[in-house]
């Protein structure tokens, strides 16, 4: 019997990376490889890295070193944003077999296949295809992402992404719709619209909102989430689309700062007032609409007063979760050259304040859902018959069920909140 080659895939960073890894898992599986468990030895390890902050660089480096040490005779393939940002440095490391840039990531399986067939190809010779991934078949998740665009031309002054993910490019409408249909055929019931800056989607005159409408028209019992979105990526009527039963009432809308002054220095393309009005418009149509966000603390020149504006606005906006980043200087960005960098301890204090606020508003939001109905997509049922999954508002829900089948929808009523490390809502089936 032929022993299958084992491949292990590790992901760091954003949802887009996660999706691309899931798609590679499918491609390796189709090509006859066995997917190794996280602690197994592997013949091939692919590390899909992130470089968005210093911390992500460190984690990526650690993952590469760990994988190389564990699989001394195996192939180590490094891809992702770090591969673009530090290509030459990584290529000099002996423990790494191949360094593959983002726009050739979808071709990694053919690179590895050729390697084992004795043909050593330089990754630079692979085709560039940012949308050449297989539709996800096997995944550890019940939801899968649909990549609609890649790259970003916004050049926010703190951000390294435009340099590593390249210029904005949108996937043709038909390819997107075909991808949606094939993941639905593969059994997924929830899709997440993903990209680097999806609000800038534009293909032959079709913009983001129009594409979304087309996706919602695809027949089937499924629902659609939108991954992170920039506040300048849609028009004043966007909230109306959420009347569609397939579109879930949650947005991760990136605020970054609640100070107008800092937003200008970040070269973000909206104002706090614009953000406020957006939230108000959504909530007047759907009062329990769930907003989550990203905030950067310690951007160069951020004063106590600027930070207070951020805290005040975050409180007012009632985000159910705030992902806080401490500003991290990235080489080649404009913010790197800005005077008055904020000291580490000040950043740490500000970040802790936001974290506490995020905790509190999460509890408040969860409490406000008491008595309301949710349609939960079941991800897991434990041995006691307790099902867990997310409601349409992107809140974690558990409830008792006699049916052990997962990846199905169940309509429930929220009864109570169970606070703890992973706070969740307890519900009953209705």
């Amino acid at each position: 019997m032929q022993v299958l080659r084992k491949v292990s895939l590790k992901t760091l960073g954003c949802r887009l990376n996660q999706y691309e890894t899931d798609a590679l898992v499918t491609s390796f599986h189709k090509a006859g490889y066995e997917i190794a468990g996280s602690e197994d030895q592997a013949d091939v390890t692919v590390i899909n890295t992130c470089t968005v902050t210093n911390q992500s660089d460190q984690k990526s480096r650690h993952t590469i070193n760990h994988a190389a040490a564990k699989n001394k005779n195996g192939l180590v393939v490094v891809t992702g944003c770090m591969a673009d940002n530090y290509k030459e440095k990584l290529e000099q490391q002996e423990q790494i077999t191949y360094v593959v840039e983002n726009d050739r990531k979808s071709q990694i399986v053919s690179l590895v296949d050729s390697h084992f067939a004795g043909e050593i190809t330089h990754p630079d010779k692979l085709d560039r295809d940012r949308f050449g991934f297989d539709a996800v078949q096997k995944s550890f998740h019940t939801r899968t992402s649909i990549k609609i665009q890649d790259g970003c031309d916004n050049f926010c002054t703190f951000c390294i992404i435009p340099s590593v993910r390249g210029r904005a490019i949108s996937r043709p409408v038909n390819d997107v719709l075909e991808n949606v249909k094939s993941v639905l055929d593969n059994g997924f019931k929830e899709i997440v619209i993903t990209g680097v800056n999806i609000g800038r989607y534009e293909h032959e005159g079709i913009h983001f909102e129009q594409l979304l409408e087309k996706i919602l028209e695809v027949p089937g019992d499924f629902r659609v989430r939108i991954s992170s979105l920039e506040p300048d990526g849609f028009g004043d009527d966007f909230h109306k689309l959420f009347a569609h039963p397939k579109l879930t009432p949650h947005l991760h809308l990136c605020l970054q700062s609640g100070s107008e002054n800092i937003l200008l220095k970040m070269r973000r393309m909206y104002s706090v007032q614009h953000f406020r009005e957006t939230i108000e418009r959504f909530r007047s149509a759907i009062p329990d609409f769930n907003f989550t966000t990203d905030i950067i603390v310690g951007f160069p020149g951020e004063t106590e007063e600027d930070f207070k504006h951020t805290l005040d606005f975050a409180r007012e906006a009632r985000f159910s979760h705030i992902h806080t980043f401490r500003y991290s200087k990235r080489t080649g960005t404009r913010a790197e050259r800005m005077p008055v960098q904020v000291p580490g301890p000040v950043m740490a204090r500000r970040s802790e304040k936001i974290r506490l606020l995020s905790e509190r508003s999460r509890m408040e939001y969860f409490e406000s859902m008491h008595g309301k109905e949710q349609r939960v997509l079941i991800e897991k049922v434990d041995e006691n018959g307790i099902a867990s999954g997310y409601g349409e508002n992107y809140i974690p829900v558990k409830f008792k069920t006699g049916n052990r089948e997962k990846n199905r929808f169940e309509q429930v009523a929220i009864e109570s909140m169970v606070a703890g490390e992973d706070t969740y809502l307890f519900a009953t089936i209705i």
Partner: protein
Amino acid sequence: MKTIEEVDQYVVKDIRDLNESTYVLRFNRGIMEFKPGQHVNIGINEKGEHREYSIYSGTHGDYVEVLIKEVDDGLVSRRLRKLKPGDQLSIRGPFGFFLADAKPASNERLLFVASGTGIAPFHSFMRTFPEADYRLIHGIRNIDEAYDKDHYKESRYFSCTSRGNRGDYNGRLTDYLLEAEEEKAEKVYLCGNSSMIYDAMDILRAQGYRHDQIFTEVYF
């Protein structure tokens, strides 16, 4: 026929001094397509430092111009001035969305507010759409910063000089915005340094402009 790589080679065509510290750098356009309001990233060589510069010229010519002010201790703005016609440039872009939705419609009055070299995108717009209905308020220190003032129709260009008394208004741009009864515009575009933009935005909002009528391009 030339290859894309050859067409994509950018060389300095001309450097035109406007005052002691400011100049217009012209280079061949190659195959570049751009819209008024966009910027390019310019470096002396591919691997070296690049900086953003708004395109100054209109979209019709076979060249591209940028308006650059030398910054004290600045790396790129000073080096670029030392270049000679025929020297190579590294150009990335064009990038950006500023002025993307400003169309020269007859019923749409546009208000342009610039500080210093922040006038560049408006110059490109005016060169591209000479018939547009706009009014340009330019905040500068001295009158020698009223760059290419004679390129604009007299009724459209208005300088505010914070020093000297030769401006159309002698004082800060923001004081002018506070005091003046400028005719209401459909859209307002602000370009230049962030502190001017910050103050001007406050004033414009107080005058009743909605956030979706105000657009910004921050240089530093």
